[in-house]
């Protein structure tokens, strides 16, 4: 039987990898890819906790959370990519480092 800790460590690793991508990528699309990985690690955690601790009827919380996380992830990606394309069109670049209009 697979221990719960394995899932959690896998999710933590995936989260770390995703976060690394978000922080270090110069390309906005690359940052978005990292974000997807982070979201997936959250889903792994949710399902793992559901399976190990809260599976009994009628507790559907874990599953419902995952379902909603899917929706949010899909929405976030769609809007994110639309923003990237829009930014690209106006600035001809997707380099994060050049998008510093908010510099104080």
């Amino acid at each position, binding site marked *: 039987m697979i221990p719960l800790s394995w899932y959690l460590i896998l999710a933590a690793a995936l989260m770390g990898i995703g976060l690394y991508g*978000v*922080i*270090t990528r110069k390309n906005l699309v690359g940052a978005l890819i990292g974000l997807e990985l982070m979201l997936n690690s959250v889903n792994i955690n949710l399902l793992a906790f559901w399976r190990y601790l809260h599976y009994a009827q009628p507790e559907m919380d874990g599953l419902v959370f995952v379902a909603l996380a899917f929706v949010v992830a899909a929405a976030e990606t769609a809007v994110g990519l639309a923003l990237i394309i829009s930014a690209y069109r106006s600035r001809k670049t997707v380099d*994060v*480092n050049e998008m*510093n*209009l*908010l*510099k*104080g």
Partner: protein
Amino acid sequence: MSTFLSTANLLWFIPLVPFAAFVIISVAAFRSRSLSHSLALGAAGLSFIASMIVVWNGLHLPGLAQNPVISQIPWLPAGNSTFMFGVQLDPLTVVTLAFVAITILMIFIYSVGYHNFGAPVGKEDIPGLPPKGAEVKRDGHVEKVPSVEPMYARFFALISLFAFAMFLLVVTDNLLGLYIGWEIMGLCSYLLIGFWYGRESARKAAIKAFIVTRIGDVIMLLGLAALYALTGTLNYQQILASPQTLSMLSTTASPVAGLSWAGLIGLLLFAGTIGKSAQFPLHVWLPDAMEGPTPVSAMIHAATMVSAGVYLVARFFPLISAGWQPGLPLTTPMLAMAAIGAFTALFAASIAVTQNDIKRVLAYSTISQLGYMVAALGVGAYSAAVFHLFTHAFFKALLFLAAGSVIHGMEHGAFHSKQELDTQDMRNMGGLRKKMPLTFWTFLAGGLALSGFPLITAGFWSKDAILAGAFSESAVVFIALALAALLTAFYSARQITLVFLGKPRSKAAEHGIESKATMTAPLVVLGLFAIGIGWIGIPQTFPVLGKLSTDWFATFTGSMLSFEVSEGVSSVPLVTSLIVALGGLLLGWLVYRKVRSAKAEDVLEAAFGSAYRFVQKKYMLDELYDLLFIRPAAWIADVFVSKWMDLVIIDGIINGIGKLGLWFGYVLRNWFDLPVVNGAADGIAGGTRKSGSFIRKLETGRVQQYMAGALAGLAILFIILYSVFK
């Protein structure tokens, strides 16, 4: 008869059609004159047809008074019960509906001609003032002709609304519905008196009418509330057709002056009548209301709205007379009605004798005739009062419309002869019978009906019935009414003589012309009614003719009452009525037939001098009210409230507070604000700026650096939490 067109459904239908016309005209159709009056006329016509069917059905239902046609819908949930709103058809409704529907339709038709439909638009005409006439070229030379009313559509919208209210008042089956119609009519009256709001006199008259009638309305509302509180209903049937309720009301003592509740409520409701039907002392608004267009004067202030007050007391006659039988002493409200009605009849008739404005004479005549009806109800002559209400509506509407026609003819003459003069002043007229034959003959019919010319006019029969009723109950009332009838005949003769007979006394009168067919046709129709409608009520005790008559009217309306009113068999009232009518007419003609000049002093003025002028000034009542109520109110407002209370006390207090505040503010500013608050604020602002210019270096604008910062923060938080909660 299909169920859709049943009597009950038609009753609902009658008021709603004019209302629909009002809404459509005011929302959509106001740009088109012809569309507006088509809608209004169509609605009035439909209501008229429906009314006639309803009246016809009502006449053929046996026992209508005991089993009226009723249709109700739940309207207002009130606590644990529901207020039912409905329509009702009983003999009183039948009679009222008949004359209301006919006069309203006639007046609608007349209005088209009166407002010069089809005439050119005057260049100088502005909304809010009567049309000043337009110049047109005809046969090579410029001619001045009457121009169309600038607010034509508005007029028809308003009279449609008025028709809705009047029909509602007539067909409704409860006092609240009546009150709603009553108040809407008050509003319409206000708007229509002030229809030419560009004139200050019209504005003042409108406000006066509204406020004076309001006094009565408020008191009436009190009666309505008392009635609802005591009986829990405002439905006519539940109150008036229930002997238990009536005897409960007439035997329970009210907290006021030893009156029974029936007496108190009767008096309160009668106050509404005093206001609406212009009885003394609240009659002052009606003559001034002649500022409105003549169809309005005819419809609202002669035929229908002022009749509503009489209708109200007739409707509530069982309550007012609760506990009374012929032969017993009159109840308090009846006594009040008899006194006020008889006094008003005499008083207003005497003023009418002295007036020179053709419409004002008719206005005072209306007040006088309404006094007749009220007095008749007061002495228990119920059928006679309703009969007079019925006939009066026809001949008074006729007289007003004919007067409007005369004024129109005079205006035309004034345009033609380029003469500036008062086209409503009877002294400027004379000899118009040849110029305006139709108007003359119809006016004559109306005038004779008003005077009670024997046998051939409607007014004779109804007035005779009232005199008979008064004679059997009270000698004082009878004498007052007989004198009033004499005066009525006198001023009618005076009016006819001054306007139509003799020779023209001005150039305008010389060039007067007959009005258009839209104006004269209603006159003819109403003229026929003014003559013939009285024959339905010939009493059976009348010599010769009585044998042929069934006295249908008295039987029909009398069925509304729980007791029989015995008709006097005395010949005194009949003889009196003959004498006063014929004598008054003859006297009037004799006195005024020789008036030659517009400038001449009135014959009676020459004879009576200052007494005449006192009456001509309406017994100085307007001045008295001005002195008693308006001046003191203005004085209190000006001197007491404004100058003394406001300026001295309140302003003093306010100024004191203001000065104190000023001083306090000065102290605060110099000792606290400038050194402490300002210094602190400046310090904070400077510090913020400095720290801001330092911190802004952290804002790189790079999202990833922010995120890394957040990550570092998270890591630190994690370490702290972990080391603390391990």
